[in-house]
């Protein structure tokens, strides 16, 4: 084969496959919409398919970025959709109570209240997971179920509409010719990258998710780290909630952020972060979220009925998961891909034990006996 080292290095980069999928998806649009990549300037605003993909994908990117950190610790957060709804509901209902809905101070206060509520949700999730030791899926299920009720309680079951120029800016406004939400997303992503890679948070998160017992023995206070990531995740979801309600100028307790937790998890997985925890990639997640949004757009532009969107998504979930499953790779590709060295588990599964000579000479790993 004529694979040059540079090409190999490229294909082995962790962002290669997500980006490749994104590029292919984008290219698929061209035959159907020849001016797909063109961007027009109208009324001092930039318009075009690419701009709308980023614009419509913004809330998902935000939620998925927060979710990435939670998943990296080996957890999951199902409550983000409910947090989106609660934040939007609180903020909008506060603004709508104001005499002057466009007053800056009122809008900021409203957003503050919404985000504080989000942080409280995150603290609660973090407390249940890190302090009480409840499985993340179960712990976050509580707010997933109750949260929408709370959001509807706040909005009194109505869709609260607001008419506030400053608030409209976050999700629907323009700044420097671009949708303002793109700047919000860029800022959150930049802050997240800085927070995880400029400090040691990223390393410690990956360590806790990669090997919890080793992390304990090395003195990492994993409880604090876990609480922190759940709070951060909820905060991201809160900002997404502001964005969604601002975009529609309305808070809908029932439907705002519906299923966004599933899309976010999907984005994280497409971005190359394993659901088992450990190594994470914020860049990959952003690309993953863009892939999901582009898929939606593409289905629309190529004329396939939009309702098949979900079927495509299901196919993507299955394909991505099968590709990540060592067992599937072993069965389908034989030994070519092999299994990841030092893969998770090692809990003495017989299949693994037979293949691993070391297991024969060492005592069987201790299993939990309750």
């Amino acid at each position, binding site marked *: 084969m004529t694979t040059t080292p540079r090409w190999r290095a490229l294909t082995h980069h962790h962002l290669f496959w997500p980006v490749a999928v994104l590029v292919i998806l984008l290219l698929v649009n061209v035959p159907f919409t020849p001016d797909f990549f063109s961007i027009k300037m109208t009324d001092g605003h930039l318009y075009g398919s690419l701009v709308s993909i980023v614009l419509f994908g913004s809330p998902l990117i935000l939620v998925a970025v927060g979710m990435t950190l939670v998943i990296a610790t080996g957890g*999951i957060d199902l409550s983000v959709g409910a947090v989106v709804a609660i934040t939007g509901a609180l903020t909008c209902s506060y603004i709508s109570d104001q005499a002057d809905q466009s007053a800056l101070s009122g809008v900021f206060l409203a957003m503050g209240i919404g985000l504080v509520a989000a942080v409280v949700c995150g603290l609660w999730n973090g407390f*249940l997971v890190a302090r*009480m*030791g*409840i*499985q993340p*899926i*179960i*712990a976050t*299920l*509580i*707010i*997933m*179920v*109750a*949260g*929408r*009720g*709370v959001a*509807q*309680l706040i909005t*009194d*079951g109505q869709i609260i509409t607001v008419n506030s120029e400053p608030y409209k800016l976050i999700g629907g406004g323009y700044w420097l010719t671009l949708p303002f939400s793109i700047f919000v997303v860029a800022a959150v992503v930049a802050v997240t990258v800085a927070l995880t890679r400029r400090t040691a948070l990223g390393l410690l998160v990956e360590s806790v998710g990669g090997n919890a017992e080793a992390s304990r023995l090395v003195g990492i206070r994993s409880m604090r780290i876990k609480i922190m990531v759940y709070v951060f995740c909820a905060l991201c979801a809160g900002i997404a909630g502001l964005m969604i309600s601002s975009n529609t100028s309305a808070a809908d*307790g029932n439907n705002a952020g*519906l299923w966004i937790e*599933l899309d976010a*998890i999907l984005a994280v*997985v497409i971005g190359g972060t394993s*659901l088992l925890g450990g190594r994470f990639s914020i860049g990959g997640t952003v690309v993953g979220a863009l892939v999901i949004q582009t898929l939606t757009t593409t289905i629309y532009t190529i004329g396939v*009925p939009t*309702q*098949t*969107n*979900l*079927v*495509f*998504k*299901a*196919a993507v*979930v*299955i394909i991505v*998961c*099968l590709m*990540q*499953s*060592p*067992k*599937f790779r072993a*069965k389908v590709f034989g030994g070519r891909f092999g299994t990841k060295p030092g893969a998770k588990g090692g*809990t*003495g*599964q*017989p299949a693994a034990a037979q293949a691993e000579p070391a297991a024969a000479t060492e005592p069987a790993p201790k*299993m939990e006996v*309750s």
Partner: protein
Amino acid sequence: MSTTTTTKRPPAAESRTPSKAAQLLGDRRLPVLVTAGLFLAMYVVGLSRYQNYGFGEAQVFMNLFIDNGYLLVAAVGVTFVILSGGIDLSVGSVIGFTTMFTAWLVERQGLPILVVIPMALAVGAFGGFLMGYVIHNFEIQPFIVTLAGLFLFRGLCLVISKESISIGDSSVSSMAGAQVSLGAGFLSIGAIVALVVLAVAFYVLHYTRFGRRVYAVGGNEQSAMLMGLPQGGTKIAVYTISGFCSALAGLLFTLYIQSGDPLHATGMELDAIAAVVIGGTLLTGGSGYVIGTLFGVLVLGLIKSLIQFEGTLSSWWTKIATGVLLCAFILIQRAMTARRKT
């Protein structure tokens, strides 16, 4: 049940003998009793508050079964999955899909309902089988596989039609309208089917080897395998059962609401999971009773009807109350498992 052991207990092991309170906390039937007690208490509260509004009528009680029969069937399927240590998020979508599938076949294709029923059940069971197969053979988390199932079936709903299809077929409406008189009140066919499903599930879980395998796999999958039990087949079977129950619940829901809609039963998997957990089944698997699931469903149903009787309370209180109960029961479960670990 006393768990006293007359084994000559060495002094060092004395500290392991649970105290009375701890023993009570360790009893697996406790959560079911708590839920049953909760149901009774709520019912009594309802009686005392809304006596004059007819809450005491037997039919109000019967309506709990009529209005929640489909949820009970779905929750029974989920009970199997959760007992085996898994989870199934596809339930709501399969229910929604079944309503669409049935309505479409009956209304648009003109097939008789009696032909459609087995087809719908087969599709649901096959979907569950596929998910179980992938979960077991490729060792992918049930959560993510059934999430794909959720997307797939909801997507298939929309592929059939974006619009709601109402069913005007006379045999369907006569089935839906049928009432089985029980002296003081009546039950619908859906409620009867749900109770039959519950009875069958109880029998299977407690009186067949397969049922005990479900518990064994949920208790400790590794051990189950080392004890020579076919743990893979059990897991696949459990998801197949859940798919079947979801489809059956979908049929009952179709009867109940007499239409197919691509958005029917959105999020019902959460109600089903909540009912199972409130019914005392451990989300980590291996412990719980299908009777508990009945009480879980009844509690959720009672919350709804209490809120209706109250009149001033809005429907979203149902969700909040469900969430609060879920939280309480998860914490009780946590206390129980924490005790057992030591």
